[in-house]
C-alpha cells in the first residue's frame, strides 16, 4: 500500500499523480492533441514557456513529440528533470546505488528539533551529508542528485503541516527525525516504481528542461508549436509553495538565492511596478473592480485599492510582457494553444482568457477560443480553493502567428 505520509503534500500529490497539482487536465490536452493531429503533420517539437511541473512534457512524450520546457521555480524544474524520460535510466541506477548503500547512509543522532526556523542545525548538517552521499552515488551528477533529494527535504523541516494550506504554512516548531531513513527508503522505492511504470509509455524521450525566467531566456532555436497554461491570479503565492525546498537550494546547494521578482501571480504587491496594459478586456475589468469598490465598506475599498487592483494590474501587465517575449521565440506561422480557466473575484469574472486573446491579437496573431465550457471545479486542496474557484469558464485558445 502506498503511504508516503512523511512527504510534503505537494510532492505526495505529484508522486501519486493527484490531479490537484496538474497544470493541465487530461481532457484539455486531449482536445489540443486531436486538433494538432487533424490539422498538422509537421509537428516534431512542442514548446512550453511556463511549464510548471512538466504536465505538458509528460503528456506529449507519450504521444511521441519532443518538448522544450521553461520553468522559473527551481523545485518545479527539478521535478521535471526527475520525470523526464531521458533521465529515467540514470535515476534508477542512482536510486539503486543509494539503496544498496543503506548501511552507510549518514546518521542523524538527534531524534528531534524545536526551532523557530524552517530548518534546525542538525537537519542542515544532515541534508548536507545526504546530498554529498547522493552526489557520490551519482558519480557527481549534481542535477540528478538535487532532483532526487529535493522532494524529501521537507521531512527534516520544522513547520506546521496542513493539507488545507500549502502555501502559507507557519514555519518553526517541532520536527521528529525518528525513522527518517525508513521514510527515505520508502520514498526512493515509490519514486523508482513510478518511473519504471511511466517509462514504458513514453514514445519520445528527447525533452529539454530549462530553468529560467522566460523574460531572460536567450535561445537560438525558434519554435513552431507551443502549448501552455498561464499562472492564475488566485492569490496563491506559488513562489511560497516550495518555500522549504527553495530554502535548501538557496542555503545549501546554490550560492545565490532565486529571484522571484517576475513571477507572475505571486502576490508580492508592494514595490512592484507595472506599465501600460494594452488589453481592453483587462482594462475594463480593472475599472469595474475600482467602480465596485466605491460601493463597498471603507475597509473593502481600501483592500481593493491598495491590494487587489495593483495585484491584478501587475498580473495582466506581466502576462502581456511574457507573451511578447514568447512571440520573439516563435517562428513565422507558429501555432499555439493556451489553456485558461477564468476565476471570479467579488462576483466579477477575471477575464484571463479574453485578455490573452487580446494580447495575442495585439501582437498580430489570430486568436480563437476552440473550447469554452462552464465547469464546476472542486479542487481537493481545501475550502479556500473551493471558494475561489467554485465556478469558472475554461478556454482553450488557439493562436496562429501571421
Amino acid at each position, binding site marked *: 500500500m502506498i503511504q508516503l505520509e512523511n512527504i510534503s503534500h505537494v510532492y505526495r500529490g505529484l508522486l501519486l499523480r493527484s490531479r490537484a497539482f496538474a497544470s493541465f487536465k487530461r481532457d484539455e490536452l486531449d482536445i489540443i492533441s486531436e486538433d494538432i493531429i487533424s490539422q498538422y503533420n509537421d509537428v516534431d517539437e512542442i514548446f512550453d514557456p511556463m511549464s510548471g511541473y512538466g504536465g505538458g512534457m509528460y503528456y506529449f512524450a507519450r504521444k511521441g513529440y519532443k518538448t522544450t520546457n521553461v520553468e522559473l521555480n527551481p523545485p518545479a524544474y527539478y521535478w521535471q528533470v526527475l520525470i523526464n524520460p531521458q533521465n529515467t535510466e540514470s535515476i534508477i541506477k542512482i536510486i539503486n546505488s543509494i539503496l544498496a548503500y543503506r548501511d552507510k547512509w549518514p546518521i542523524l543522532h538527534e531524534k528531534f528539533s524545536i526551532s523557530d526556523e524552517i530548518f534546525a542545525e542538525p537537519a542542515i548538517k544532515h541534508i548536507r551529508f545526504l546530498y554529498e552521499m547522493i552526489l557520490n552515488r551519482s558519480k557527481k551528477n549534481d542535477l540528478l542528485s538535487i532532483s532526487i533529494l529535493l522532494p524529501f527535504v521537507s521531512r527534516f523541516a520544522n513547520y506546521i503541516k496542513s493539507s488545507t494550506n500549502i502555501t502559507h504554512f507557519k514555519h518553526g516548531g517541532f520536527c521528529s527525525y*525518528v525513522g527518517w531513513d525508513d521514510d527515505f527508503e520508502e520514498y526512493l522505492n515509490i519514486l523508482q516504481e513510478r518511473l519504471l511504470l511511466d517509462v514504458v509509455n513514453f514514445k519520445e524521450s528527447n525533452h529539454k528542461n530549462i530553468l529560467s525566467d522566460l523574460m531572460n531566456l536567450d535561445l537560438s532555436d525558434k519554435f513552431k508549436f507551443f502549448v501552455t497554461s498561464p499562472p492564475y491570479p488566485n492569490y496563491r503565492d506559488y513562489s511560497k509553495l516550495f518555500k522549504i525546498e527553495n530554502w535548501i537550494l538557496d542555503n545549501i546547494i546554490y550560492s545565490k538565492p532565486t529571484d522571484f521578482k517576475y513571477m507572475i501571480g505571486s502576490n508580492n504587491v508592494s514595490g512592484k511596478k507595472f506599465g501600460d496594459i494594452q488589453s481592453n478586456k483587462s482594462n475594463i475589468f480593472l475599472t469595474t473592480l475600482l467602480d465596485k469598490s466605491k460601493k463597498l465598506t471603507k475597509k473593502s475599498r481600501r483592500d481593493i485599492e491598495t491590494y487587489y487592483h495593483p495585484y491584478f494590474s501587475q498580473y495582466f501587465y506581466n502576462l502581456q510582457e511574457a507573451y511578447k517575449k514568447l512571440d520573439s521565440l516563435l517562428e513565422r506561422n507558429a501555432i499555439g494553444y493556451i489553456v485558461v480557466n477564468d476565476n471570479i473575484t467579488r462576483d466579477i469574472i477575471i477575464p484571463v482568457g479574453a485578455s490573452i486573446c487580446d494580447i495575442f491579437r495585439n501582437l498580430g496573431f489570430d486568436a480563437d477560443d476552440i473550447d469554452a465550457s462552464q465547469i464546476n471545479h472542486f479542487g481537493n486542496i481545501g475550502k479556500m480553493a473551493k471558494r475561489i474557484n467554485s465556478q469558472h469558464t475554461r478556454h482553450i485558445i488557439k493562436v496562429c502567428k501571421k
Partner: protein
Amino acid sequence: MQKVSKTNIGLFVKLIDNFGCVVFSPFSGLFFAIAQPYINDVVAFCNNKTYNLPDHVVDNLSIGIKGYDKRFEIQHWLPKIESFSAQEVLPEDPLVVNWLITNKCNFECKYCYASDVIDKKEFDPVEVKEVALKILYHEPVAVTLSGGEPLLEKQKLIDAISELGNKTGIIVDTNGYIYDQEIVELFKRYNVVVRVSLDSLHNKINSCIRPAKNPILDKQVLNVIMSNIQEYLSNEIPVLVHTVVTSLNASNLEDLYDKFSRFGVNGLRLFRVVTPNNENQQSDFKEVMLSKSITTLEKAQKNINDKLKSFLRDIKSNSRFSLQIVDSSSDSKNSVILVLPNGEFYTENMFGNSKIKIGNTNLFKKVDLKRHYMRYLGKLDN
C-alpha cells in the same frame, strides 16, 4: 473467582458476569470489550494456549506488542459491537479508577479542572497501601494515577505502583516535565503506560496554555517534555499524548497527529475542554478560549467542535497510532470514578462547584454507567 488478572502475555483481563470481559493492554494503553462467547479463547490466547478467534480480535489485542506492526483500523468492541446488543443493561462494575495521588503541581494550566483541589487545602495523610486495597476491592482492569502531578510525590507514587502492580493495569498521567530513572525502572517492571499532557508543538503556545509555576522554566518546557517522551519510548514504555483542545490549538490537530505518530508515540487522546468549576479561574480560562474573532465561550466551543469534526473526517484511529476523542459530557452526567488524595471516592461533577463524594460501596449511584464505559471503550452504538 478472581475477576482481574494479569495474563502470561501481559494483557490485563477482567471477567464481567453476563457481559464478557474487558481487556487493558499495557502495550498500547487501549481497552477492549470482548463478548461473552469469546472469553475462553481470549483467555487462552492471553496465556499462550491454543485458541480459535477471528483474526481481527487477535490483531486488536496485539497492538503495541513488540514485533507486531500490522496496520488496521482499531475496534474496541470485539468481535463486533452487535455481539453486545443483547446487553440491555451494562454491568455495574467499574473499568477504571482515577486515583489523584497528590494535589501538588509544578504547573498552573489555565483550564485545569483539578485546580479546585490543587495546592488549596492539605488532605489528611493516608496510608497509600490502604487506599490501594480499597481501590482493588472494586477490581478495575486499570488504575490511573494522576493528580496534580504524580511525579512530584515520588514515594507515594512508588508505594502506589508497588501495591497495585501486577494486580491491575497502571496508567500514569503526567505533565511530562519531571523524569526519574528510578521510577522508570518501576514503570518497566509493572508495564505502566505513561500519558503525557501537551497542547502544542510550539513552545510559546504550549506555555501560554500550560505555564510552569516557575516562569523561568517556560522557555525550555517543550524541549524537556519531548526529550522525556523520547526517553520513555527508548525504555519501551508506551506513551500516549493528552491534548486538551482549546481555541489556541484547535487549528493544529493535524500537525499534532502527524508529528507525534512520526515520533513513535503510541497515540493521541484529544480532550474537549471542560469549563473549570473554580470561580477564580474563569479569566485564565477565557485567555485560552477567547480572541478577537471568538468573543464568547459558546462560539469558542462551536469553533472547537467544527475543527474536531473536520480533523476526524480525514483521520482515523489506527493500530500504529491510536486516536481517541474524550468527550466532556454535555449534560451533568459524570463518567469518572475519582479517588482523592485522602482516599475518598468522588466523581467530577463538572457543573457544580465542587467534586461530589460518592462513598465507596455503590459507585454508580452518581456516576453514569454508560458514560463510564464510553470513556474507555468509545461509542456504545454503531
